[in-house]
């Protein structure tokens, strides 16, 4: 291994460099100009996102601890785009609320550190690297969840996240040690050769799986989700539901399709049961929610249940549909959170009843929300429809007809509560509707990109074919 192979970690190194640059900038920017850190961070991250599109070689370095290939690289780019949109959407909030408390730079540093953790997690080649990545991606978010220190509920959310996450990673680590005990190695490529369906291995796998399920908020590891989303700042809730969940789904998929492939007869049943439970619990709870953030929390739990349909098929088709769906989910959910963010930061209103009559006062915002909800619900021709359709196709092609049927039932339930919001916005006349306001440039940009994503991903089929091609490595 020579130094040129460091270039294969380009994404990680650039992101680390950005973190360091921001730290230095924090020192040199005078106190009254602190808000410029937002522009700086967005600028740097924009470049990072753009540079990410240069192709990268397939490799495995540091004795196999770190590996990457085109699909992983592609997924990192997807995460980058998501974070970039998130930055645009939260820029105003940071400038107005956070910079005033002189905590602007830390916000970005913590956020980027967490993203860095995700990079390492999805690129990991052994359980040690995986675990470090997992922790690095979780811990800063706990700090971020408690970021609005003046609000009690925000601190509560931080505490709940750190406690639950601690428990989950403890379980996960226990699982990893059992797997090490049975296979004698922490390297994925060693484990693939030795893994067998002994009871101890299965126990280790279940523990490990539970830890990751916590991050994806699958039932019954989902309890923290709603409380944390409700208390945390919207950007952080959005980050948890979109980026963090996306990355965890991705690594779970890779591990299930590679090292745990020999255990498929065990985990396919598990995923089957958990998928059904997750879809139903998420949807049943979402029906009753009045707070938009809690509402989106449960909706994102239900969406995670749908994703499992792609995992269960365990083929190239499954891989492609999961990646495609996650991508669409990122855009749709970011659009929904973006609108909630915009409204909340202008008026502080987060209840569904506050949205009544929104179309009359803010038609553009309500149209973005409409598109996002349609995409989440899977109404053609927006992207979400194709995402769900392909997932169902993948599950059906492996013969899981009952599961697909239950999923369709759940789509119907979800349609009901997504349309509740639409009804509030378009058909109800609010008593005191949210007055008209104009969004700033960054927010507008952030919303426009999501809208383009929702529309284009649904119509531009070569993208799916590209993903399908990339997915051939996990066939």
């Amino acid at each position, binding site marked *: 291994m020579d130094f040129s192979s460091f270039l294969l970690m380009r994404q990680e190194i650039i992101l680390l460099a950005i973190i360091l640059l921001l730290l230095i900038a924090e020192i040199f920017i005078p106190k009254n100009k602190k808000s410029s850190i937002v522009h700086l961070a967005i600028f740097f991250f924009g470049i990072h996102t753009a540079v990410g599109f240069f192709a990268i070689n397939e490799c495995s370095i540091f004795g196999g601890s770190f590996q990457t290939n085109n699909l992983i690289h592609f997924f990192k780019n997807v995460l980058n785009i998501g974070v970039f949109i998130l930055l645009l959407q939260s820029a105003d909030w940071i400038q107005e609320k956070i910079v005033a408390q002189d905590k602007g730079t830390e916000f970005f540093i913590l956020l980027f550190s967490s993203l860095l953790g995700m990079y390492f997690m999805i690129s990991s080649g052994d359980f040690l690297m995986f675990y470090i990545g997992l922790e690095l991606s979780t811990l800063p978010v706990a700090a971020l969840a408690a970021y609005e220190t003046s609000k009690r509920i925000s601190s509560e959310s931080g*505490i*709940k996240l750190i*406690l*639950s996450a601690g*428990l*989950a990673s403890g*379980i996960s680590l226990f699982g990893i040690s059992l797997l090490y005990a049975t296979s004698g190695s922490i390297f994925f490529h060693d484990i693939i050769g030795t893994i067998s369906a002994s*009871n101890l291995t*299965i*126990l280790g796998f*279940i*523990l490990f*799986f*539970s830890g990751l399920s*916590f991050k994806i908020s699958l*039932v*019954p*590891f989902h*309890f*923290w989700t*709603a*409380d944390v989303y409700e208390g945390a700042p919207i950007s952080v809730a959005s980050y948890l539901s979109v980026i963090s969940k996306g990355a965890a789904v991705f690594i779970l998929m890779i591990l299930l399709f590679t090292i745990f492939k020999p255990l498929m*007869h*065990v985990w396919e*049943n*598990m995923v089957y*049961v958990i998928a059904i439970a997750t879809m139903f*619990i998420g949807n*049943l*709870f979402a*029906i*009753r929610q009045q707070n938009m953030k809690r509402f989106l929390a449960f909706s994102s739990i239900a969406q995670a249940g749908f994703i499992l349909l792609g995992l269960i098929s365990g083929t190239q088709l499954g891989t492609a549909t999961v990646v495609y769906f996650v991508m669409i989910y990122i855009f749709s959910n970011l659009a929904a959170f973006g609108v909630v963010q915009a409204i909340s930061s202008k008026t502080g209103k987060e209840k569904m009843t506050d949205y009544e009559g929104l179309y009359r006062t803010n038609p553009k915002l309500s149209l973005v929300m409409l598109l996002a909800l349609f995409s989440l619900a899977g109404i053609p021709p927006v992207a979400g429809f194709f995402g769900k359709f392909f997932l169902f196709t993948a599950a059906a092609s492996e013969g899981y007809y009952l599961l697909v049927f239950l999923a369709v039932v759940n789509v119907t*339930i979800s349609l*009901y509560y997504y349309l509740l919001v639409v009804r509030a916005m378009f058909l109800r006349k609010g008593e005191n509707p949210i007055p008209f306001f104009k969004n700033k440039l960054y927010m507008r940009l952030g919303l426009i990109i999501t809208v383009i994503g929702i529309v284009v991903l649904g119509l531009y*089929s070569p993208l799916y074919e590209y993903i399908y091609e990339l997915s051939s490595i996990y066939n």
Partner: protein
Amino acid sequence: MDVTYTILIPLIPLAVFLLLGIFRQKIKPAVSGIIGVAGLSTSTLLSFYTAYQYFFVHGKVNGVYQAIVQKTTWMNFTDTLHIDMGVLIDPISIMMLIVVSIVSLMVHIYSIGYMKGDDGFTRFFAYLSLFSFSMFGLVLATNLFQIYIFWELVGVSSFLLIGYYYTKPSAVSAAKKAFIVTRFADLGFLIGILIMGYYTGTFDFETLNAVNPETGELALNWASNSFMGLSVITWALLLMFMGGAGKSAMFPLHIWLPDAMEGPTPVSALIHAATMVVAGVYLVARLFPMFYFVEGGFALNIVAYVGGFSSLFAAIIAITQTDIKRVLAFSTMSQIGYMMMSLGVSGYDGHEGVGYMASMFHLFTHAMFKALLFLGAGSVIRAVHSNYLKDMGGLRKYMPITNITFLIAALAIAGVFPLSGFWSKDEILVAAFEHNMLLYIIGVFVAGLTAFYMFRLYFGIFWGKDTKYKHAPHESPTSMTFPLMVLALITVVGGLIHFSEYVSADRVGFEAHLNIPLALVATAVGLTGIILAFVFYKKENNLADKFSNAFGVFYKWTYDKFYIDEVYLFVTKKIIFNLIAAPIAWFDKKIVDATMEGIGNKTVVISNKIKGMQSGKVQDYAFGLIAGVVVLAMVFIYLWTN
């Protein structure tokens, strides 16, 4: 020949549509008019450039015009069956490009004057651009599915334009009627396409139409299934023709066309005279080899008779109508019937294919003079603020340019030498004479009727009684008279084009000759019609009333369009609503809805019951997490092992 640039012809109007649509409130009306005209001018120039390149430079190889196709695959089903997107350049698509671009450009210019001061000016131009985009796309389509997509888009933009005055209930219901009737017809079209795709394994026009030069039959192979005595392919063609008949207002799917006159007059000129309504003719022409060769041209015969009957039927109704736009609407239906009839009696190669050529020729000339008639009518309506003949008369003194151009168009449609209508109509009658005597006689009779009702209209508007107007009518602005003059010029000289050398069924081209005896017969019949109209309507007299009284009931029937609308109403309201829709509605409400509502109510109940799970206490959450792990471990290690 690289024809990639031709995709710009539809894409430019699309860009204009998006621009005007998105920035509707920010663009000043004057600017939006200029943007619309500029966009369409570019498309027009490109169309002419394409035509020049094709016909005079690259198109002909070994004496045969080649079809130039450029496409990409959009959706794959099997190796041969896929949906492509692309452009198909051949003589008829270029001819249509020219027609659509000229008429659309003229209508754009005309609308600047006609729609001036209207609140929805920008919206109107946006819709016009959307329509132009769809129509260009339809013309350039390379396969059945692509043409179907644009076919529906054309329908949507027509719906938007007919219902443009959306505060007028009559306009709204007319828009709905047009959409529903054509959609109903399109159902047939879609089924036809699917049958065709299923049995032949391709949607591609060039593959479908390929003729084997050795056997002189279609090169395509298909499973020879038959249904009710006809091969499935014939059924597919008939179903597709149903779609075409809907769009082209052929009997009995014509009922939407007269009502569609509720739209602004430039719209009627563009969509319901020159472009969209000939889409059905274009479709049959596009698939002509299939229509001709499959089962000895059974489907083609149907086309001929439907066309002939519609042409006669509409011409009779046109005589009695008093709304000038409706007269023109029925006249359009009648002339399109002519085109269909002409396609129907056509052969395939050499001079045998004269009907095909004549149909396309008539499509071209008719588009010009019918657009001119509509635009002229628009100019008149704008001057007297009424659609009805009773409010008009003696307008020649006030509106000289409109008068002259309208007269030219009326002479052309009546088939007077040497205007363009004379040449194309003559070729149609030649084709009919050579193949089907009955249809020839209908054709000649319709020619006489056409001349009569057209001059009834002309004399009624510009001569006749000296109406006292509240405000003295005056000639329209230049933006409106300019398109009139351009179209009049094309109407005068259009007949001199040697159409048969460029457009023919086998794409080889042939020399067409004027058949002097037939031309004399047609001219004589036409002149008779004109003279009769002259006697009846030149000066105010009661001759016409006497005649209509003499016909009595028959006149009343004709005036009420033979009660076809009422038949439809009876069938839909009494039969379909009561006997089919009502039971289905009951089933839907009591069985389907009730089940769904039951599920919904149960869902809410369950949702309420389990809300305790989310207590807000971290201890409970931790318990849930551990319990989840334990249960999973128990189940999957001890109970559910396979």
